[in-house]
């Protein structure tokens, strides 16, 4: 067994099996560290992993991710596993799973797309063309997202 070089958490979420180097992207789209919060967030980068060779791990104290946030993570870390921790025990463990379509999670890169027209009552919507690595296509203008991580709307 590989022992993580970060402290276990009492309550919160552990995002494991993030591709090595992607932890900071995960932090960004989750809006971490949250302003005004004193809860502990631990990041492990380039940790040894039997499955992946190397991986990143993010542990967030006092916060349970909701399904929308899990969807977002799946777009930059499609192989991640998410464990909800309550009183040092794993209360729920799940592998991230991309839905067929996502709404208001990513921005269309096409500036001429109607979803980027501020005045219109429209939320961005993307069709998932491929899970791993994730490929997204705007459901409105049809443009494929070139930089998925950069297109994600920060928390």
């Amino acid at each position, binding site marked *: 067994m590989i022992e993580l070089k970060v402290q276990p958490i009492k309550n919160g979420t552990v995002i494991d099996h993030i591709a090595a180097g992607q932890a900071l992207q995960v932090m960004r789209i989750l809006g971490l560290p949250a302003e005004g919060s004193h809860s502990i967030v631990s990041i492990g980068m380039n940790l040894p992993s039997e499955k992946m060779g190397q991986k990143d791990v993010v542990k967030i104290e006092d916060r349970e991710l909701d399904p929308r946030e899990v969807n977002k993570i799946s777009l930059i870390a499609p192989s991640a596993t998410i464990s909800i921790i309550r009183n040092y025990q794993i209360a729920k463990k799940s592998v991230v799973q991309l839905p067929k379509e996502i709404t208001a999670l990513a921005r269309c890169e096409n500036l*001429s797309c109607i*979803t980027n027209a501020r*005045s219109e009552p429209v939320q961005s919507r993307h069709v998932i063309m491929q899970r791993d690595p994730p490929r997204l296509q705007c459901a*409105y*203008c049809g443009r494929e997202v070139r930089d998925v991580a950069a297109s994600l709307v920060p928390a």
Partner: protein
Amino acid sequence: VSANLEAATAPARATAMDWRGRDVVSIRDFGRAEIDAFLDLAERFVPAATGQKRNTSLEGRILATLFYEPSTRTRLSFEAAMHRLGGSVIGFSDPGMTSGKKGETLADTVRVADRLADALVLRHPKEGSSRLAAEYAEHPVINAGDGAGEHPTQTLLDLFTIKQECRRIDGLTIVLVGDLKFGRTVHSLVSALAHYSVKIVLVSPPSLQLPDEVAAEARERGATLEAATDLEAVLPEADVLYVTRIQQERFADPEEYRKVAGSYRVTNALLARARRDLIVMHPLPRVDEIHPEVDASPHARYFDQSGNGLPVRMALLAALLGGKP
């Protein structure tokens, strides 16, 4: 036996052509069977389109044309189509005259027009605008061009023209020349042609090549795509030469533009190398990529192609609103 065969195939065609109430946003929303059935239907509207036959099957119905960008052929063609079917048309072609100018959103204008008309035709500078309009409208929305995005009725009339002139689409060699990068008509046409067993030859300057994703999508569907830079060399094998305009604003250097535009100019001298039954198409407006001398040649089909917009749009309006040939 033939009666049995007909019975067996008829339901498939009927399903393929059940377009009532449907939105026409992207040619990619339509499969080969649907396109084939539609092209058959459009042919049946030719007598009414030319005025040989009277058709009033959309009498009392209203089409709203919302044109946020200038258009001559497309708007006139939709209006003529609706009138030829006995219906009437409301709308605008100068957004400066509408409440859009006062800051009204497209979504609001669409909801208003939707309560006045039975179908909406939209041209708008933003890509994806027709998809949004279709979400807000109860009635069918037809995309008549959304920025650099889609223009599905242009693709349908292009396919109709090829089929009318060549009597088939499968087996043809189709050469596309000009600006293949920015031209939306070309992207949609390539996507639709990929349903057929055709050889598509792409002739363009290196800076104006077909985007990779458009080519990849066509190849995924089994299309044969070849790239070339020398039009003269590929012309002898062509059944269809589809010419598009190269816009000067795509070039930083005017000299470079002149060189490129000149090398893809279609003249009678160039066409002397072509097959006798080659047809030359162009979505229009043309500037100088086809010399006017070609207009009188037996190859020229671009004005017929433009005219084919009428039976095609009549067939489309009829299919969406329950009209008949």
